[in-house]
């Protein structure tokens, strides 16, 4: 147990520099773009250059770049991630206002992709070469090779043609007047297109990993032994093969966790889902620097947290994984 915590602390210490370097690189890249957020006001004949200068001074944009960055870094210690120029609000407040929507969308898509990848990957892996395996393989490749934006547009066009699903957004116009079950159903209907697009994309990848793992394990000696002892195929699949095949899937989970909040931006924008994607695109385009930095920190923290959670899950799922003594 001691070595487990030691390993956790060691991993945390190793990622701290990453948490410092990533925002700094983002900050530098944002400043490689010419001008700043308030440049868009310069073409407004009714706003004087003096007013623009005042805005720049208010948000410390008139200070040297490094001074701006260290000022921001200093505030982070007090959990102050700076101000969004556009929203005139603390960055954390702006991010928090959209976080739940993005989490709901990507969480459902993530869970669906995982559940289906494990079940279908196991099924296809146990029946390698069968027609069901080939069909699933084809769908997985299609999902992987079609860009998410194209799939979103395609599904929206189909929905417009058949009129059975809402065309973007998160709730219907009369949402407030609905009863609770109808409200859930309404949000659920709005989620169908974005969730399908996101889930199909990551399912394709996860399915292939799971299927490959299962196919390899099925060939191993211990499975042959179980078969010789006439253990039921169902038990072999669920109790032995699935458990052994899950390890790489858990590692992937750690890497995929940050994409819960960052990987669905494009789909959100196209399907009009009011999540982080829309404000982040706007923030990058208009150079709302601290909002972009805040989001970057959030994604970095999730990456680190995802890896740690994956490690803990790996330890729980596979007793063979033991830490080396320090």
């Amino acid at each position, binding site marked *: 147990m001691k070595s487990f915590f030691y390993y956790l602390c060691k991993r945390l210490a190793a990622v701290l520099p990453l948490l410092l370097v990533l925002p700094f690189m983002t900050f530098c890249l944002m400043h490689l773009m010419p001008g700043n957020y308030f440049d*868009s006001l*310069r073409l407004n*004949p009714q706003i004087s250059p003096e*007013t623009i200068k005042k805005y720049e001074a208010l948000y410390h944009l008139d200070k040297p770049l490094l001074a701006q960055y260290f000022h921001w870094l200093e505030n982070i210690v007090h959990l102050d991630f700076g101000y969004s120029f556009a929203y*005139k609000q603390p960055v954390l407040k702006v991010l928090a206002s959209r976080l739940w929507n993005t989490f709901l969308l990507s969480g459902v898509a993530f869970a669906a992709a995982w559940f289906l990848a494990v079940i279908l990957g196991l099924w296809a892996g146990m029946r390698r070469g069968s027609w069901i395996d080939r069909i699933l393989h084809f769908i997985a490749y299609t999902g992987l090779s079609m860009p998410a934006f194209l799939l979103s547009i395609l599904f929206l066009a189909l929905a417009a043609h058949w009129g059975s699903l809402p065309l973007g957004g998160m709730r219907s116009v*009369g949402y407030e007047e609905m009863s609770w079950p109808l409200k859930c159903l309404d949000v659920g209907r709005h989620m169908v297109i974005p969730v399908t697009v996101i889930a199909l994309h990551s399912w394709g990848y996860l399915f292939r990993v799971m299927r490959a793992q299962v196919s390899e394990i099925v060939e191993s000696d211990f499975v042959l032994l179980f078969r010789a002892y006439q253990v039921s195929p169902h038990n072999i699949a669920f109790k032995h093969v699935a458990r052994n095949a899950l390890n790489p899937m858990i590692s992937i989970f750690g890497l995929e966790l940050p994409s819960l909040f960052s990987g669905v931006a494009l789909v959100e924008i196209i399907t009009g889902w*009011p999540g982080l994607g829309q404000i982040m695109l706007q923030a990058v385009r208009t150079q709302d620097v601290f909002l972009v930095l805040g989001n970057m920190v959030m994604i970095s923290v999730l990456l680190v947290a995802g890896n740690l959670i994956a490690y803990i899950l790996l330890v729980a799922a596979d007793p063979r994984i033991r830490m080396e003594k320090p």
Partner: protein
Amino acid sequence: MDDHRPRHLTFRVFCCLSIVCLIVPFANPAKAQVSNTLVIALGGAPKSFNEIIAQETTTSDVTGLMFEGLTRFNPLTGAVEPRLAESWEVSSGGLDWIFHLRRDVLWFDGKPFTSRDVVFTFEKLIFNPAVIAPARDIFTLDGKPIQVEALDVFTVRFRLPVSFAPFLLALNQSIFPEHALKSAVDSGNFQSVWGVDSSPEAIIGTGPFKLKRYAPGERVELIRNEKYWKKDASGKSLPYIGRIIALIVPSADGRLLKFLEGETDLYVLSGADYPLLKPKQKKSHFELLEAGAASGSYFLAFNQNPPNPVHREWFKNRVFRQASAQALDREAMIDIIFNRNGVPQCSPLSPSVPFFYSAKVPCYEFNPEKARQMLKAEGFADRDGDGYLEDKKGNPVQFTLLTNAENPERLQMAGMALEDLSRIGLKVNFLAVEFNTLVTKLSATHDWDAVLLGLTGETDPHFGANVWRTDGSLHFWNAGKGAVKTAGEDEIDGIFRQAASLMKAEDRKKLYDEWQMIAARELPMIYTVLPRTVYAVRSRLQNVKPSPIAGPLHNIEEIRIKE
């Protein structure tokens, strides 16, 4: 038994999930009653509800329904009408203005609207050094702020440092409640007050609608202000509409789809939508209402003070600019970019600007042959037989045309202008850049040759003074180190200075007519074409009188919904 349990469990979970997945898409919850509700789609989310510090239209689109000024600009007649002020008197040659306020106006929380609120808005908000209010630039005349004083509970006096003709129009500036905002101003928190996370009840105005709910990035919901002061001819309280739901739909295609599906009641057409929507009017229960040429402008401009002295000589040459204007095929631009739904623009003002627009301004007809001859007379000729012109000294006439990459209409227009200019022998390279890069080039580095750009429209030419006066910060075509006044610029400076202080509208119009003629002669900006503004309006809406300047909802309190 043990062997079968997991199989059953997995099977059941899988079946249940599959059934849910199949039901959800097709189970459409019964359409809830949305009676007397106007549903619109906004292109962007409001960033704040604090109109004083707001800079973007996505905010003012919403706050415009909640706050009002002392006066109101009628976009259909061009007249300035009373709003929170009932009447006014002007004396001392336009330096003293006394406004008599309405006595029947209540804030959303029931407190009366008084002269203290007007004084507070100007003294504590607009002219407060701790608050950055873009409106301060409008009310600072000759470097001095205007003075505001409450004469009694319902009378205010404004003292102007110099006479300022568009003052009445400028007073459509929204007024804010002292009792609701004083503490925020005193504690220095005004800059972050009334953000998008505020409770709707905290946002207090006098307008026809008040905020009911804001779901970030998703929708803004406004409800009728029961205490609104305005009544119709029969004495019935306005507004007629009970609720407005503004959905936030960033993509233009999304807004079109939602309108076609009947989810929204209004849609602003772009050129490409016209042939799609026109035949669907009856079946989808809507009408296309044409409001006239859009406000604003699209223009091609040459840098008359570029770093390269050879280019400077070409671009400073008025005939060169006139020949370029003559080369632009505006009809083709209207056909291709706006689907035949546009008008050529000849004056700096859009034809939809009431009163000040001059129809006498001559237009440059498309005539590439004449353009070639004009250039030839100035010494531009194809001396090496490559199909492109060289100037008198043999320098090939080659330059770069810039525009911002985010605007598809400008990109298309720049592409067509490039072809038109090539047709008369000018070799033009095209570069689409990010908006901020363009702004940096125009306002700071001045290293550009030609640009295709647009500016927002003004209802009074004075508000474009920053562009036209040589000391204006947006006088981009002749700016930077070593800029020398060009022909006509002295006259234009004089016109803008004089017209701002004249109190008779007719006298001002004469001056601004002259300015439009000089602009057409000197062509610092070669205007191209404007789209016609067309709104698709659901048939159940009555009394919609759209204007290209103020949109379809400027008379929102008078719009009815026929159930």
